């Protein structure tokens, strides 16, 4: 066990703990992240898209570009593995 990686990991952890003291409490209903656009999605997604699961409606409709990019990432990963591992030695 070398000493430098331990020191770097501990320093990063200490920095994150120091920064995390200013975060809102865990499970706080008044935290800013839970209010800006999340409220709008929760109120409107039932009328806009008649799908019960909010995660599904946000994933496929409000943020459809994200999911299209995600599918492209999977496809590119598969093609990359094929290029790496198939047809060597020719």
């Amino acid at each position: 066990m070398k000493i430098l990686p331990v020191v770097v990991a501990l320093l990063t952890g200490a920095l994150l703990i120091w920064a995390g003291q200013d975060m809102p409490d865990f499970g706080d209903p008044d935290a800013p992240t839970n209010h800006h656009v999340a409220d709008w999605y929760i109120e409107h997604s039932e009328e806009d898209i008649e799908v019960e699961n909010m995660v599904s409606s946000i994933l496929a409709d409000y943020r459809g570009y994200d999911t299209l990019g995600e599918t492209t990432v999977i496809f590119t990963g598969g093609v990359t593995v094929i290029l790496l591992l198939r047809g060597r030695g020719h």
Partner: protein
Amino acid sequence: MKGDESVIVRTVIRLMAPFIQIYGLYVIFHGGGGPGGGFQGGVILAASIILYVMAFGIEEGQAKLTEKINMIMRTTGLLIYSGIGALAILFGGKFLDYGAVPLPFIHHIPEVRAILIDGGVEVGVGITVMAVMVTLFYEFYPGGSIDD
């Protein structure tokens, strides 16, 4: 590499694989009403084929799902998704604006969006994910990397 599992393992997996596949289809099509969706269902469908290859060997598995069909499915799913997006442009909306697509007999716009999400987008994602996961498994399997 040939699978050399016992007859009990083979019989149980031969019985179980169709039920796993039906569960995967249920997860894909039930994505709107509860937990689930295209990605999870595609992974479950791929898991049934992985189980089959583990018990019966790579040759039997590739006889069931050949590399050619796999390659076609890998691209078809992505094409379904972006095709539905482009369909909205064709009918005067923006890219991926599902409400613009006129479906026959349905004029209620939220219902059109729900049907396109559940029946189009999730199926496309599921097909691509299943084919890519099976591809990864075939490529990493010892002796499974074929040249064609």
